[in-house]
């Protein structure tokens, strides 16, 4: 009861000019203290080694003023477009039409994706970008099982991507096994590594869990880097076989697909094949995840995110529940890794750095933890955004980072921040993200 009343007062307090001014004043005070020495007084070693100093109060004043003004602007922005103001500001009919549009957004995106190779047949750049986006969509959906559903923060997801890639690369180059045999094996091996990661972190929560998973990702990369005899170390594995259409190669040879169909060979065929391959893999991930969510195991994952103690009181084995979440997420990462290896034809440890884990995690968080459509949109935004700002060169990361910060101010719980129930009696109502827990890890 008390918690409720404090919440309402907090919400009430955010509006009002005195509040904004007070907040801006506080920020300005902090800036004054912080910068008075850093900017207000400039020290330098004089010609004879003695200390010379002079004051720059003008600069200090302008900085403090800037912080004061900026703080007001940010607070106003937050209240106008932020999550608290949005509900009141956007009229109900517009909100309803938005939600209607949201319902058709998923299918529309899917149809568009299916048509991309047809529309952009001759634009290799777009097709390659599409494949890249879809790879991250798949990775995002895989990590979403662990982070979004089970609420376990995993900073080492790239490890499973690497295990999948190296599994396929090594099995294919050493034994000559085909992609379609290696794909499930790569998934299984990654899942086993997922369980291996799961065991030591079972009792960890929050920051501790994040740090151990981060270390796990680094360990896998370092092992790959140093196990020269097996993995080729920094030189990586090259000559990884390209995928075939159930045995028919997609090349210029006499028994290639083009020759068999009697059409003129074009390297685009393979790109299009890869596009549909990753699309199929991503859709499989999506389908399995959506189904798992409606099965007892998926509900247990979400319950685990909400309250682990209550789960145990209901007789749910939290150990196996966590391990299956890690294993399932890792398996999808492994599939994506095998695809990456066959697409590139060459892999090396450089492709599996922490930056990849961070990027995939950013996609999941930006998308709205647990939301499939949100993750897909976030992958499109992030990867597409990277490309869009390519022309800005050095300023690319700066602009991109600012865009991310703005999105997170506008939608702190991700692009799609509500949760859809897995079962309903009369009507499936979206559950506001304020109620949904982020999990403890």
């Amino acid at each position, binding site marked *: 009861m008390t918690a409720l009343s404090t919440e309402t007062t907090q919400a009430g307090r955010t509006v009002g000019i005195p509040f904004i001014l007070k907040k801006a004043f506080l920020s300005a005070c902090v800036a004054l203290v912080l910068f008075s020495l850093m900017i207000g007084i400039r020290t330098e070693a004089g010609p004879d080694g003695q200390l010379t100093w002079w004051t720059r109060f003008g600069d200090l004043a302008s900085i403090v003023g800037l912080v004061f003004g900026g703080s007001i602007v940010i607070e106003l922005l937050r209240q106008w477009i932020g999550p608290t103001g949005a509900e009141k500001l956007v009229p109900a009919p517009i909100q309803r039409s938005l939600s209607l549009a949201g319902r058709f957004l998923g299918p529309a995106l899917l149809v568009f994706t299916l048509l991309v190779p047809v529309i952009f047949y001759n634009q290799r750049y777009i097709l390659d970008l599409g494949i890249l986006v879809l790879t991250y969509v798949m990775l995002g959906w895989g990590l979403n099982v662990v982070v979004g559903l089970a609420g376990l923060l995993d900073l080492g997801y790239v490890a499973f991507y690497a295990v999948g890639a190296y599994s396929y690369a090594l099995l294919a180059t050493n034994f000559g096994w085909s992609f379609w045999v290696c794909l499930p094996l790569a998934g299984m091996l990654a899942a086993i590594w997922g369980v291996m990661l799961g065991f030591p972190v079972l009792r960890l929560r929050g920051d501790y869990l994040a740090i151990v998973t981060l270390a796990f990702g680094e360990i896998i990369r370092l092992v790959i880097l140093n196990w020269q005899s097996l993995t080729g170390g920094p030189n990586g594995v090259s000559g990884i076989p390209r995928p075939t259409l159930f045995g028919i190669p997609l090349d210029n040879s006499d028994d290639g697909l083009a020759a068999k169909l009697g059409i003129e060979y074009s390297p685009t065929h393979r790109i299009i094949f890869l596009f549909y391959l990753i699309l199929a893999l991503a859709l499989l991930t999506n389908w399995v995840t959506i189904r798992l969510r409606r099965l*007892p*195991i998926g509900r247990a994952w*979400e319950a685990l995110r909400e309250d682990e103690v209550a*789960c145990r*009181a209901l*007789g749910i084995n939290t150990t196996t529940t966590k391990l299956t979440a890690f294993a399932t997420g890792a398996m999808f990462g492994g599939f994506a890794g095998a695809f990456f290896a066959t697409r590139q034809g060459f892999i090396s440890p450089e492709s599996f750095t922490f930056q990849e884990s961070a990027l995939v995690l950013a996609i999941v968080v930006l998308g709205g933890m647990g939301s499939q459509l949100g993750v897909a949109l976030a992958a499109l935004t992030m990867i597409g955004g990277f490309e869009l700002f390519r022309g800005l060169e050095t300023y690319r990361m700066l602009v991109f980072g600012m865009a991310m910060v703005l999105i997170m101010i506008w939608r702190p719980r991700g692009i799609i921040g509500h949760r859809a*129930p897995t079962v309903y009696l009369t009507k499936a109502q979206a559950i506001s993200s304020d109620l949904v827990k982020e999990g403890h890890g």
Partner: protein
Amino acid sequence: MSGEPILSVDRLTMRFGGIVAVQDLSFAAERGKITALIGPNGAGKTTVFNCITGFYKPTGGAIRLNHDDGRQTALERLNDFRIAKQAKVARTFQNIRLFPGMTALENLMVAQHNALMRASGFTFLGLIGVPTYRDAEKRAIALATDWLKRINLLDRADDAAGNLAYGDQRRLEIARAMCTEPALLCLDEPAAGLNARESASLSELLRSIRGELGTSILLIEHDMSVVMEISDHIVVMDHGVKIAEGTPREVRDDPKVIAAYLGTDEEEAAAVMESGS
């Protein structure tokens, strides 16, 4: 049905470092009855619950659960989730622990996890959608619906549990525990924070659980109107030890009980006496 008590606690002791929260506590809970555990704040009641449900490993003593078929389970040796799964002991918490971001119906479905898990062939059969799983899910939804009706929340089935009123959350937590189909239901202060009308309907609910379903109940409660009205047997604790036990009438007139309450909280003591007059 055997005549044995469903739960017998024998010389239970729980220490936290130097603090002795429970000392040599022995009592029994009769099958099909409501047994109340009362005592002033800090007496060690919640600690006893945590020992029974496996959240704490007792420092000493034995806790036995006697099943209907004569089997006996030593609860002090089992893990928390196994106590709920195998010994069929369900519990609620002093501070409500629902899954706030899941709907009321989903909360009740999660409670049926183990049964559904088996029906779904540990996910594999469920994934391909075999009809036996679909039937099991329908039955689970039917059981959940039944409980939502009992606690009068059928119209809120698809609302997030975190959005329900406080009293509704309390009842939903009890329904969730009951959906595990327990042999013994342990309730930690279910009437805390309820108004008089809600307390009365809670008493009604607990009576129906005992009467219609025959589930044995172990109850911690401060609300004396609830305790005196529905309990068959009352165990009174203070400072980790049992100071009295008996029927509501016996306990109410026990000078030691009145002294224990007077010594700590006048309001509670007044409540005890009031319900006595």
